[in-house]
Structures are given as structure tokens and as C-alpha cells.
């Protein structure tokens, strides 16, 4: 299978970390630009129009959210993948709700990050075990829901998320649940959509906290 070359812009305020990511990414990913702040990132991304932006959640002049909000309306083709050391749910959920296609922790290996970039470029969602944990927490039953379509996970989606939280990769999940990898992808994408659009209390609370900062 021939893998297309993905053009990536790296947005992180730590030079050292950017260098590490650049070195770790495989040959199928080309870093075409780098920025260390929201002010630098926004025009750069608009100019380069990359496939994927690897975006730090925390930036000195705003956050990853600010970049997404300013770029997305003009460059709908650009996909964002959040990359952070943060363990705080509100940081992560905030960026995802702003439009990022997924979230991975900075401890991720180069190979996994490369795979995540391709998945993001293909329009799929990328869930790290930690994000899966957050989502399962946020969608726990208990709260009354306004819109069952958006505010609840199906049993299948829950299973998929639990396996992600357990450290399974998509392929492993597919074989374990006897699904095609495509079906697993579509479940994860459905969860991402719910994460972005649901009005569940936990999600709106997290998002609101993030905006206030």
C-alpha cells in the first residue's frame, strides 16, 4: 500500500520538543513549517495549507483552541491533532470541541505519532487511552440528557472506547470485536462528533472553563 506524503505544520512553544517530534516522525510525514505561538501559527498555516497541524494545547498567547478558531473557517481542509503533556480534562476537551480531530500525549512514540498523523489526514479521529478515559467519564450515565443521539454513547461505542483505554490499537480492536477496521474508525469518529456537539454538562463545563482562561 503506497502511503501518501503528509505535509505537517508543528505548533509548539518548545524548540526542543519540536526538534524531538521532527526527528521522531517517519518518512511519510514532512514537516513543512513550525511555529511557537498563536500569532505566528495562524498566518503560517493559512499560507502553507498543510494536511495536518500538530498543535500544542498550551501556547503562550492563547491556546491551541485560538489557532483552530482563527484558521478553521478559512482553511476547512486543514486537520488538527492536539498534542499535549496536559492531564487536565478541560484542556483536552476544550481543544477537541474547538475542532481538533483527536488528542495524543507527548509521550507517544514516533511511529504511533506518524500513524496518528495519517489517520488525522484521512479525516479519522485519534483517541489516546487517556482521551478515551475522559470521554467515558464525561458520558457516564446519570445525568439527564437533552438529546440521546448526541449525549449518549451506544454500547458499541462504549466497547470501542474501553478497548482504547485499555491500550488496544484500532486493528486489535477490530479483530477482537470482529469488525472491520473501517467500522472501528466510524465508531470513533461518531464519538468524536458527539464529543464536539453534545451538550452534556461535563463537556460544556470543561469547555467553558477553558474559554474563561
Amino acid at each position, binding site marked *: 500500500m503506497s502511503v501518501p506524503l503528509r505535509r505537517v505544520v508543528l505548533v509548539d512553544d518548545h524548540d526542543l520538543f519540536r526538534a524531538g517530534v521532527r526527528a521522531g516522525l517517519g518518512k511519510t510525514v514532512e514537516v513543512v513549517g513550525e511555529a511557537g505561538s498563536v500569532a505566528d501559527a495562524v498566518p503560517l498555516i493559512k499560507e502553507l495549507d498543510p494536511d495536518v497541524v500538530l498543535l500544542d494545547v498550551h501556547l503562550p498567547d492563547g491556546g491551541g483552541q485560538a489557532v483552530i478558531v482563527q484558521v478553521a473557517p478559512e482553511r476547512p481542509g486543514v486537520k488538527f491533532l492536539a498534542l499535549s503533556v*496536559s*492531564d*487536565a*480534562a478541560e484542556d483536552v476537551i476544550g481543544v477537541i470541541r474547538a475542532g481538533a480531530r483527536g488528542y495524543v500525549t507527548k*509521550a507517544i512514540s514516533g511511529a504511533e505519532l506518524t500513524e496518528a498523523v495519517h489517520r488525522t489526514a484521512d479525516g479519522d479521529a485519534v483517541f489516546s*487511552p*487517556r482521551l*478515551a*478515559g475522559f470521554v*467515558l*467519564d464525561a458520558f*457516564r*450515565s*446519570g445525568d439527564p440528557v437533552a438529546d440521546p443521539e448526541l449525549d449518549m454513547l451506544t*454500547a*458499541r461505542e*462504549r*466497547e470501542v472506547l*474501553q*478497548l482504547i*483505554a*485499555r*491500550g*488496544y490499537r484500532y486493528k486489535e480492536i477490530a*479483530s*477482537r*470485536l*470482529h469488525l472491520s477496521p473501517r467500522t472501528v474508525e466510524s465508531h470513533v469518529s461518531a464519538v468524536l462528533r458527539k464529543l464536539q456537539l453534545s451538550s452534556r454538562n461535563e463537556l460544556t463545563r470543561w469547555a467553558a472553563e477553558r474559554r474563561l482562561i
Partner: protein
Amino acid sequence: MSVRSLGIQVALPRFERAERDRVVAGVCAGIAEALAVDATLVRLVFALLALASGAGIVAYVGAWALLPAPGAPPVTRKRRISGVVLLVWSAILTMRGLGLADSLVWPLALVAAGIVIAAGAHTFGLGDRRAQVVGLVLMVAGVVLFVDRNHGGGASTVLAPGAVAVALLLVVGPWAWRLTRERDAERAERVRTEERADLAARVHDSVLQTLTLIQKNPADARTLARRQERELRAWLYPDREPAAGGTLAGAVEAAAAEIEEVHGVRVEVVRTGDAPLDDRLQALVLAAREAMANAARHSGVDEVSVFLDVDADGNGVSLYVRDRGKGFDPEAVAADRRGLAESIRGRMERVGGIARIVSAPGEGTEVELEIGRRLDGARQGAEGSAPPAPERK
């Protein structure tokens, strides 16, 4: 606020008696100079005022007391006080000379004196608070006098309290406002200082110590760095902090931290929900710890994933320990491997739980521990379609 700015003006900083062009004491010329008008005009005003029961003369003496000689330091406190008193007196004389009734003039004078004293505490060398009190008393006296003189009987009992309240507000208001602001600023500053000290202490105790240790003993860098990372995370993201002693999630995270320390691997704990720790769950934690230790020892990889899933009601608990290392054939494991047989499976069974080990050579290992969860409904879907898990009782 307006009262406060008045206090600054009372100090009359720029007025000086004049040296040249003086007729008596240089007061008129000095004022004319400061106001940039013709001295004759000022003299004319004083002369006209003198016609009003001698107010101009009194004012002149007052101004002389207040204004320093050219180049001399500001006048003494006594002179300032007598100057202000004379000016107030002259104002009273003027108003009476203009035909205003005593019932208006005296209260007005009292209120004015009160405001001047309250606002110009520094001019009179009074303490802030004492000036406020004196000013307040004078103003209240003025208001009461006014009400008393101008309204017979009944009206005064209605008006007086309101007038007193207004006077109180005038004097106490700005003072209380300033006091509150000062206290808030002070508190904010204190909080900031404490935070900075806390941060410095934290950085010193943790990060600096770790860096020192790493320099001394580079071989331990990985373990030390990981421990440091864990501590900093717990501090930075308190909601992910290992829950205090008595909860399941806290115990699992502590066990994971311990395994990281001992075996130098990375144990990622993801959790949803939490429950108070009891004997049953204690056994689960110990079994999980053993599973993590096994993964660290035998898998050949340096990352272990742990997922703790607690039901919303806190009854059912599942815990998964997974590595993607070399794996093994569970059927072929010697029966005397205490780790699996006793520490994990035996422990779980004694408290009514289940332990499952899913592994195959080359495919990593997953240990699943469950307590208090009915094996039906939604979970059946996942388990039923799973590849035949090597179950062993």
C-alpha cells in the same frame, strides 16, 4: 474621592507671599502672581470684602498666616490652622455681610469646616482617623443646626436622621472605600507572595533535587525523571492527583508508581470513576500490582497500560493490565509460577472476583480483573466475541 482631592488642594503648595510689589505683607501680590492676575484686582477684592463687617481684613490675616515667605519652607502647623480658621471666619463674615440668614450661615460654616478638616488631615497634622471623627462631628453638628433652625418641631425629627446619614456617607464613605481597597490589595499581594514561595519551594524540593541526583548518577536518569514527572503532574493537575489514601484509584496509581520505581518501566494509568477502598478492592489492587510487576519483568517492553473502570454505582470494578510485549502461552506456564496462580488468580477468587489472562506468544499480554460485575448485558457483547480466552480455574 472628591473629598480626597480637596485635601491636596488645601495644602496650597504654589502660593507664596511676594517680595517685590508688596504694600503690606505681600499677600495680595503673592496671590496675584500665583493666579497670574493683576495685583490691583486682588487688592480690590480684599478691600471690598473689608466692607462686609471687616471680612477682607480677617481674610488678609488668614492668608498671611497660610502663605510662606518667599523661598521659606512651608508654614508651621499652628500657622496653617490659624490661617484656615481665619479664612473660615472671613467667609462667615462675608456671607452675613451679603445678608444671608444666620440659620444658613452657621450650619454651612460648620459643614465646610468639617469637610476641610476631614479631607485635609495632613494639613492639620491630625491622624487620618481623628480628622475623620472631628470632621464628621462638625458636619453632623452643622446639619443638625440647619435642620433645627429651619424647620419647626415635627419636620426636624424626619429630616435630621436623613441629613445625618448623608453627612456620615460623605465622610465615612471614601474612607471605608479606601480601607477596603487597601485591604484587598494587601491580601492579593500576600496570596501572590505565598504562591511564589510555594512554587519556589516546590521547584527546589523536586525539580532541582532531581536534576542534582541525575548529575550524580546518570544511570538512574530515567527512573528519576519519571518519578519527577509523576510528582509534578500530581501537583499541576490536582484532579488527576492520586486520590487520597482511601480510594481505589489512589491505590492503583500508587501501585503503578511503585512498579515504575522498582522496574524502570512506564505505567500509564487511565481511569474512569472511583470507589472507596475496602478489603475486596484491596485484594484487587494487590492482584493488579502483581500483574503490573509481571508485565514489567517478563514482557520485554517498557510500557504497561492500566485501565481502571468503576461502575457509576461504585460496585462493579474492572481493571486491565496490558503490555504489548512478547507474550506467552498461558497453558504452558508451569503450575508453580506463584505470580499468576496465587498472587493474581487466587487473590481474586478469594474475594469473589475473576482473573483472566489473555496472551499468546508475540502478541503481548492482558490481565483482566473483575469484581462485583455481572457478566451479562453490555459486557457480554465484548467478551462473547473475543477470541477464545484461555480460561483456567
